[in-house]
C-alpha cells in the first residue's frame, strides 16, 4: 500500500515538474494547415515558412524570453478535420495563439472553436467573410477577394473596358470571389454581361469559353479560381483564339501557374502581392527589404520558388510575435488587443494597420497589378494602363 502511494506521488510529482518545466520555457503556437491535399500548394509553403521562422526566432532567444513551440496539424484541405484539430489545439495542446487555416473552408470551420476558447486566431485564407463581420478573436493576413476584384476593375476602367464576362471555379475560393466581384461591380462601373463556372478538377473549359466568345458586348474576361483550373482556362482561351484581355486572380499568383499555362499565359494580368516581384520593386519601396529578405531565406532553405502563400504565414507569425513583444506576455486577452493595434507593420503582403473595425489592415495599394510576359511577371504602374 505504502509502496503504491509512493509511486503514485512520484508519478504525480514527475508529471507536474514536466508540465511546469515546459510551460516556463515554451509557448505553444498552433497551426492547422492544408499541407497535403488539393490546397497543398498553399499549405505546404505556409508550413515550411512557419517552421523555418519559429526555429529562427528561438535561435535568437525567443519572444519575451520564452521559446516558441509550433504545433502543426495537417487537415488535408478537409474542413471537418480542421475543426477536430482546432479543438485538439485548444483542449489538449492549450496553445496561446493560432496562425493557420489555409483555406476559407477550413478557416470558417475553425472560427467558432477559437471564438469560444478566446484564443487569437490569425487566418491565412482569402475570403472576406473571415473578417466581415469583424469577430473579436479572428484576424487574417492575405488580401481579400474583394480587393482583387476592385484592383482588376480599376485596371479595366483605365483601359476603358466596362463590360466583362466572369468565369469562376465552383470551389469555395471561386464562389466567394465571384460573389465579391458581382457585389462590387456596380460601384466600380463594370457590367458583368455573362457568367460561367467550371469544376475545380475539370480538364477542359472550351464549352464555357465558347459561350463567352459568342456572348455580345464582352470586352474582357475575368477568371476567379485557384489551382490548376485557371491554367486550363488560360490554355483553352488561347486555343479558341479569344482576343479580349484575360484577367486572373491572386489565387494563381505563383510561378507554377506560368509553367502550367505555358506560352498561353502571355498577356494575362492579375493582382498580386509585392513578394512576386520582389527584385523588380524600386528601391524606394517600403516593402522591398522585407520581401527580398523573405524570398532569399525561403528559396535558399527550401530550394523552391517563393509564393505569396508562404508570405502570408510569415506575416501572420510576425504580427503575432510583434504583438506579443508589445504585450510583454502571451496572455490571450492582451495579445488580442495588441494584434488589433498593429500599426504600419511592413510585411510581405503589404503595410498592415489594423483597427477594431478592420482585422486585415490592408488597402488596395497592397496589391500590385502584374502582367505575364515570356514566363515572367512585369509590373503595371498604377497610373498607366
Amino acid at each position: 500500500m505504502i509502496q503504491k502511494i509512493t509511486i503514485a506521488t512520484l508519478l504525480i510529482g514527475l508529471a507536474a515538474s514536466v508540465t511546469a518545466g515546459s510551460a516556463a520555457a515554451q509557448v505553444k503556437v498552433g497551426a492547422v494547415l492544408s499541407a497535403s491535399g488539393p490546397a497543398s500548394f498553399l499549405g505546404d509553403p505556409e508550413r515550411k515558412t512557419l517552421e523555418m521562422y519559429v526555429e529562427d526566432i528561438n535561435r535568437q532567444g525567443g519572444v519575451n524570453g520564452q521559446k516558441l513551440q509550433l504545433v502543426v496539424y495537417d487537415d488535408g484541405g478537409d474542413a471537418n478535420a480542421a475543426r477536430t484539430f482546432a479543438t485538439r489545439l485548444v483542449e489538449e495542446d492549450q496553445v496561446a495563439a493560432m496562425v493557420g487555416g489555409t483555406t476559407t473552408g477550413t478557416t470558417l470551420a475553425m472560427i467558432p472553436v477559437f471564438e469560444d476558447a478566446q484564443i487569437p486566431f490569425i487566418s491565412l485564407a482569402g475570403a472576406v467573410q473571415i473578417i466581415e463581420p469583424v469577430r473579436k478573436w479572428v484576424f487574417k493576413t492575405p488580401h481579400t477577394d474583394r480587393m482583387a476584384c476592385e484592383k482588376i476593375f480599376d485596371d479595366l476602367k483605365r483601359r476603358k473596358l466596362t463590360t466583362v464576362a466572369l468565369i469562376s471555379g465552383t470551389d469555395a475560393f471561386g464562389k466567394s470571389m465571384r460573389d465579391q466581384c458581382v457585389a462590387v461591380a456596380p460601384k466600380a462601373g463594370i457590367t458583368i454581361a455573362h457568367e460561367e463556372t467550371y469544376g475545380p478538377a475539370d480538364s477542359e473549359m472550351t464549352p464555357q469559353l465558347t459561350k463567352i466568345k459568342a456572348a455580345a458586348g464582352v470586352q474582357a474576361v475575368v477568371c476567379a479560381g485557384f489551382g490548376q483550373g485557371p491554367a486550363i482556362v488560360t490554355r483553352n482561351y488561347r486555343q479558341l483564339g479569344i482576343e479580349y484581355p484575360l484577367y486572373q486572380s491572386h489565387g494563381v499568383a505563383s510561378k507554377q501557374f506560368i509553367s502550367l499555362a505555358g506560352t498561353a499565359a502571355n498577356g494575362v494580368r492579375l493582382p498580386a502581392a509585392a513578394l512576386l516581384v520582389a527584385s523588380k520593386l524600386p528601391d524606394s519601396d517600403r516593402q522591398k527589404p522585407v520581401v527580398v529578405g523573405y524570398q532569399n531565406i525561403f528559396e535558399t532553405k527550401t530550394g523552391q520558388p517563393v509564393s505569396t502563400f508562404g508570405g502570408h504565414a510569415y506575416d501572420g507569425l510576425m504580427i503575432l510575435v510583434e504583438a506579443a513583444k508589445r504585450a510583454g506576455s502571451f496572455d490571450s486577452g492582451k495579445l488580442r488587443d495588441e494584434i488589433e493595434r498593429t500599426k504600419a507593420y511592413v510585411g510581405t503582403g503589404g503595410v498592415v494597420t489594423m483597427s477594431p473595425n478592420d482585422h486585415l489592415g490592408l488597402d488596395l495599394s497592397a496589391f500590385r497589378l502584374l502582367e505575364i510576359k515570356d514566363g515572367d511577371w512585369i509590373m503595371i504602374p498604377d497610373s498607366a494602363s
Partner: protein
Amino acid sequence: MAAFLQFTFSGLTVGAVYALVAVGFTLIYNASDVVNFAQGEFVMLGGMVTIFLGYAGIPLPLAAALAVLITTMVGLALYRFGIAPARDASAVTLIIITIGASIFLRGMAEIIFDKRFHSLPALFGNDPIRIGGASILPQTVVVLASALLIVCLLWAFIGRTLYGKAVVATSSNRMAATLVGINTRTIVGTCFAISAAIGAIAGVLVTPITLTSYNVGTLLALKGFAAIMLGGIGSAMGAVVGGVLLGLFEAFAAGYLSASYKDAVAFVVILAVLFAMPQGLFGKRMVERV
C-alpha cells in the same frame, strides 16, 4: 454550328482521356474479374515519373519509356504482393485490395514527388487545328489514335495469340485452364503488367491536356470506371466508345445547359443506358449455363 463543333471537340478531348484510362481496366477484368481501382494511379505514375525523370535531366522520350517500365514493375508488384497472396479470395475482396493499393500509391507519390501540379509538353505543340470556326489540339488526336491503336493491339493479342487465348481461358474458368496446363498465375500477373503499362502510356499522353499531380488518379479512375460501365465491362472497344460518349455528354451538358450540371447529366445518361442495357453497350450478356 461553330459552337456545336467546338462542344464536340471538347467532348472528344475529354472523352479521349477517359477512353485511354478505361482501356486499362479491361485486361485485368478479363483475366481475373477484378476491377482494378489502382488503374488511375498507374496513369498518375506514368505522368509523374516522366516529369520527375525529366527534371533530373533525362531526355523526355527516354524518361517516358522508363516511366512505362517503372509503372509496369509497380503493376507486377501489385499482383505479386497484393493480389497473388489473396488469390483464393472473392473478386470483391480483390477489388478492395486494389482500392488499398491505390491509396498506398497515392501516398507514396505524395512523399516521393510533391503535391504540385505539373505538365508535359505536347507531342506536336500547342497550336490548335482550326476546323469550321472551332479548334482542337493536336494532342487530342494523338490520345484518340493511341486509344484506338491500343484497342487493336489488345484485340490482336487476345484473339490471335496463344497467350491471349490462355487469358480468355483463365477468365472463363480458372480451374479448367489450370487443368489443361495453363499457368494462370503467370497469366494474371502478365495482365497486371500490361494494364499498368497501358495506364502509364495513358498518363504520358494525357498529361499535356489534363495536367497531373499525385492525386489525379482517383478522378480519372472514377471516370474511366463510368466509361467501362457504359461501354460494357470487359470490352476494349466498349471502353473507348464509353469514354468518348461520356466526354461528349459532359461537353454538351456544359455547352447547352450549364457547367454546374455536366457531371450530373453525364451520370443520368449512363443510368438511363444501363436501365435499357444492363450489360452496357458492348458487353456480353451474362449467361449461366447449368
